[in-house]
């Protein structure tokens, strides 16, 4: 039971299409992780507050409206400001290729396009958790 991985699946921005976010949340639960789901329409500030209170190791952001360039890097920056820069941020949604590169530059560790098999997300989490400090 030690070092159970906790993950926040969050929906920043205003879009209400949470089918993907809910799928990821459930699938990660079934893969043995503890998943907190934020609900829709969360501000970056609220997401960071949740991530810290819940002490998650990962924050997965899902957004389909196209506001990712404004909102994803903001989450990364706010985490760093709150002494939580070790929390790994990844994202998913409709994100054009050039934006993916820029998001990664901004500190988003991975970006998963629509239709990514859950296995890929799990592989990413398992590979990345090795770098994380033990509790």
């Amino acid at each position, binding site marked *: 039971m030690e070092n159970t991985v906790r993950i926040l699946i969050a929906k920043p*921005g*205003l*879009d*209400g*299409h*949470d*089918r993907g976010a*809910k*799928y990821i*949340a*459930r*699938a990660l639960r079934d893969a043995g992780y503890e998943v907190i*789901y934020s*609900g*829709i*329409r969360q*501000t970056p500030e609220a997401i960071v507050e949740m991530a810290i209170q819940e002490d998650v190791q990962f924050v997965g952001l899902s957004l389909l*409206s*196209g*506001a*990712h*360039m*404004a*909102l994803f890097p903001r989450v990364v920056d706010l985490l760093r400001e709150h002494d939580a820069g070790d929390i790994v941020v990844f994202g998913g949604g*409709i994100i*054009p*290729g*050039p*934006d993916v590169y820029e998001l990664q530059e901004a500190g988003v560790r991975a970006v998963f*396009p*629509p*239709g990514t*098999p*859950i*296995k890929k997300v799990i592989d990413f989490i398992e590979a990345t958790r090795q770098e994380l400090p033990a509790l």
Partner: protein
Amino acid sequence: MSLSNERSRWEREVVQPVVRRHPERRDGRLETASGVPLERVYLPPEGADGAAYRESLGFPGEYPFTRGVQPTMYRGRYWTMRQYAGFGTARETNERFRYLLDEGQTGLSVAFDLPTQIGYDSDHGLALGEVGKVGVAIDSLADMEVLFDRIPLDRVSTSMTINAPAAVLLAMYTVVAEKQGVSRDSLRGTIQNDILKEYIARGTYIFPPEPSMRLVTNTFRFCAEELPRWNSISISGYHIREAGATAVQELAFTLADAIAYVEAALSAGLDIDAFAGRLSFFFSAGSDLLEEVAKFRAARRMWARIMKERFGSDSPRSQALRFHAQTSGAALTAQQPDNNVVRVTLHALAAVLGGAQSLHTNSRDEALSLPTEESVRIALRTQQIIALESGVANTVDPLAGSWAVEALTDELESRAREYLERIDREGGMVAAIGRGTPQRDIEDAAYRYQREIEDHDRLVVGVNCHEGIGDSCIDVMGFRQDVHDAQVSRVEGVREERDGAAAASTLAALRDAARDPDADLMEPIVEAVRAYATLGEICGALRDEFGEYRQHTVV
């Protein structure tokens, strides 16, 4: 009466009056490619059980409308090809509209950005990054005037995908028409105005259910009295389906929503036939062609029966379920996006074989980004090819009598009825949504579907099979940052230039009306719009009075 006698009666009493007013079209030949003439409608062979036929299928344009809501369907006129468009500023969208009208599109369909859909002005903090993204940003009447600049509102029909603030956008549209010198009774179009599916599936709600339903019934009354050719609601299964519902759930939950609206309007004192004829529907068209066709046919039959048996309406206009269809976005794939052109063709064909009144075909890059102009054109061409080349529009309800399709139609109806019965036991759709049961059904279905794809129990070309060819690269329209700044300075300008005292007093009047549960909200909203109160101010006033809805279902 034998079927052939029935047919003569139908031709005489139903078809002829319609054909006299709207002759069948002459542009396409009403025969097959090799010259075999096509009958208007094909019937079971002589000697078949006429009573059973009339009971379950009937003639096109007659109860129970299984075969279509008009007697001649596409032989009279094709469906309306209505591509959803809207992005950036009102000016840019106006240009796209005029391009589409020039390209032969016959109706406008406005997509609004998320801040507009949730009742925030572009300079609101929560609008950051969202302005002009998934649709056009409309902050005040000034934007609406630009949006319809040089588009004569008495000659187009306009569909607006707007829900929580639908009353406000409808008010803006009528005031723009007024300024164009167009009378209210010549306005044609639709507001989506379907708040219940926002709670279930789409998420752009503002207020709690009770005041939201009041706004809906207020718009029903306004349309019944002022805009006789306007569809006051588009009861939408589309988003329910997109959220992961099965076809059966889409059918059941959409009709359950419709029942809830009718009940709300009746208890607000409206007469059933004063508004029911202006209810319209909106369904998804997915890849499973036979099931989709059966779904559309079952929807018509179920609604006709609901109107007759449950609400006691004998008016064919109230009984006939008219619907817009959009091809499924969820069925499109980011992998090998050109394959989506083929998928959209299947979806569109299902909608046409199912008797849609209007159709939006998605662009192949829908799963990636806002569609490019080229993709939008291919999508429109898809509809035109089905209309002009496929021949399926030349006889009414061509799949009727297929044992498979008829059996599926019956089965979908019976499965959807089980859901409706459960919802009745739960105290109606508003109560069921409160308990979260439809939401849970949809989430479970969505999860199952995705798991099946992951486990290869369901095959999707390019996603979990035949993926070897590699993704084709398509030109994706980038997202732009300038729209936000332009829109912010625009709304600030409007607030500066208008008569501030007049705007404030209309907003105060709106608050007063909101506090009185029996007061009408439409006229105060129209007055506020006319005084250039912004969307955010109008919705803000209502937020103060009504409170805000919060999501409460868990995955």
